[in-house]
């Protein structure tokens, strides 16, 4: 057992003071130490994208970053997407309306990936969106409805 270190994380605007080993990945810290289990872990080596979250506004693989590295950053997870209990984020709404998910395991990663892209660049066209979506794996949908949902969200967010 190696020594734990105190780490302060800011997730979706909330402060979390946790004691963790440095080897704890950000994904595991979010799930096990902060209790935010919306971030899913698939492959744990950066290929599947299920654990994609936003760190300082940019999409990253939470399995390829150690939680100690995220000290002082602004972290956003799927729990922080919707503005309140009554409304969905435009990307969430578009996935709902366009049937952009089936089993839902990959969905938090896709939502954060697309939200990160569109908040940075709402005018993303379909060609670029296809390239962005190639970051993450989905074993159910065949991606077509994820693409439709992402473009619908792009239209709403750029309009």
């Amino acid at each position, binding site marked *: 057992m190696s020594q734990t270190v105190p780490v302060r994380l800011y997730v979706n605007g909330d402060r979390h003071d946790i004691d963790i*080993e440095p*080897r704890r990945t950000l994904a595991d810290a979010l799930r096990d130490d902060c209790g935010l289990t919306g971030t899913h872990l698939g492959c744990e*080596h950066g290929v599947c994208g299920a654990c994609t979250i936003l760190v300082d506004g940019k999409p990253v693989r939470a399995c*390829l970053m150690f939680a100690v590295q995220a000290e002082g950053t602004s972290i956003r997870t799927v729990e922080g997407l919707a503005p309140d209990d009554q409304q969905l984020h435009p990307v969430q709404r578009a996935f709902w309306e366009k049937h952009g998910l089936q089993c839902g395991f990959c969905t938090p990663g896709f939502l954060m*990936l697309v939200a990160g892209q569109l908040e940075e660049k709402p005018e993303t066209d379909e060609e670029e969106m296809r390239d962005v979506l*190639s970051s993450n794996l989905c074993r159910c949908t065949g991606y077509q409805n994820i693409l439709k949902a992402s473009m619908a969200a792009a239209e709403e967010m750029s309009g």
Partner: protein
Amino acid sequence: MKPANFEYVRPASLEEALVELAKDPDESKVLAGGQSLVPMMNFRLARPERLIDINRIPLLEGVESVGDRVVIRARTRHLALQNLSMSTPLGSLLRTGAAHVGHLPIRTRGTFGGSIAHCDAASEWCLVAGLLDAEMTVRSQARGTRTIPASDFFWSIFTTAMEPDEILTEVSLPALDDSYRTGIAEFARRAGDFAIVAATGAVQVVDGVVRDARVCLGGVSEVPFRSAAAEQVLLGQEWSPRLLRDAAEAAADEVDPPSDSHGDGEYRRDLVRALLPRALAGAVR
């Protein structure tokens, strides 16, 4: 899987990082973007006892022109290169190369220098360094600064001329003028994967004649492969589609690619024949 235990060190300056690294170079690893190191640690293929995190050190990122060279600081993220506003043949090569690196969430973290120090022979940045005879600047506490040309830098897969106590700080490339054209073409089974074979070219064409030709191939040997045969075919000749095919044929004859689960040697030769003309056609677009 989960990584093994390690001691985490986060220096605030390069000098401090070099001191920390010098304490136990063989058991320490420098953590930059972590997009290759952390997967290896998660698989426990790598079990460093100490990680020196250089992500909070100022002045390690950015691209700047210095005379007839362009200097890329080591921690420059792939995404910064993809968004580079440099309207030169080199700028075009860096943007295109970055777009081939992994995916968006990899490019937000992964770094130019990390890719070169990691030394995967199929990586876009190792190819660009080989293509343009890049000069790598490395620093250690014991021996200060030294500069290593690409021809001496890449030794073998995951092995470079860097000593364990050294940190790569910047990479210098020639600022190719507008008489140059550059191109990169690669084949991978899935978008964003490491290429099975990748081809890059930088060609100077003046009045329809090739004045300078550089060709570098990835995935055909343990290090980026400069094809002297292809460069010889191109040099001094009139530019034509036929010339591209001849150069590709010469390169395919010259390489001795490995066979593995991604493709056998003959298949890789065929990929060289197919990809090099595409890279070079991009080179004179």
